[in-house]
């Protein structure tokens, strides 16, 4: 199963592209994806604890653009977004 994670705000720093791609063997929950992102950030930016903190504080939105909780299931190929702490206006 392929999950494309669109990046916004500070999370754009995680990649030169606007997204990250993940492959999973079976169904997962948002909390599993969050762990994957944390692991990637830890490996890529070991000195930057702020990035890790931002992932922990981020929400995720489904392909229907709804904010979803950590138990939301992902069971097919899809594109979702990571929503780090916001600050418009």
């Amino acid at each position, binding site marked *: 199963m392929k999950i494309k994670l669109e990046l916004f705000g*500070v999370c754009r720093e995680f990649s030169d592209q606007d997204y990250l791609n993940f492959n999973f063997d079976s169904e997962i929950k948002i909390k599993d994806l969050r762990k994957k992102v944390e692991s990637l950030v830890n490996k890529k930016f070991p000195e930057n604890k702020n990035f890790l903190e931002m992932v922990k504080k*981020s929400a995720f939105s489904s392909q229907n653009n709804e904010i979803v909780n950590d138990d939301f299931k992902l069971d097919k190929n899809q594109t979702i*977004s990571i929503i780090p702490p916001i600050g418009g206006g």
Partner: protein
Amino acid sequence: MFHCEVIDNSKEKITIQKAKKFIESQKCGASLYFLGTVRDHNNDKTVTGITYDSHDVMVKKSFKEIYEDAINKLKLEHPTAFVEHAKGYVPLGGISVIIAVACKHRAQVYEFSRFIIEEIKKKTPIWKKEHYLGEETTWLEGKPIDINKA
């Protein structure tokens, strides 16, 4: 009546004139224009501009929900709102957001406008990267979205 949009600042600019055309109504005795602009300092640094990032689809959805919430909670008469937020680079003094509202009476427009901007701060997925004089750009920390209230 309601209008909202995310404006790519590299292609067009937010203007009061466009908002004025939209909210003008003979049914309303009060109108109010709120502008958010880029100021020259933050956290003891000299700010030269801000780059705004936006999840456009969710931003527009959020604006519409905030407008509907305002109508339900504030019991407004003849409410009209025009909300636009910039994305991309906005230089010092540039407009980042406009909230133009009109209602039957003056007290309502102050409440209406304040409600919209405060809810945007809490719920709308927009991010700021500040540019400084002589220092590295920084993404501002922001506030986590409350999943239970989203």
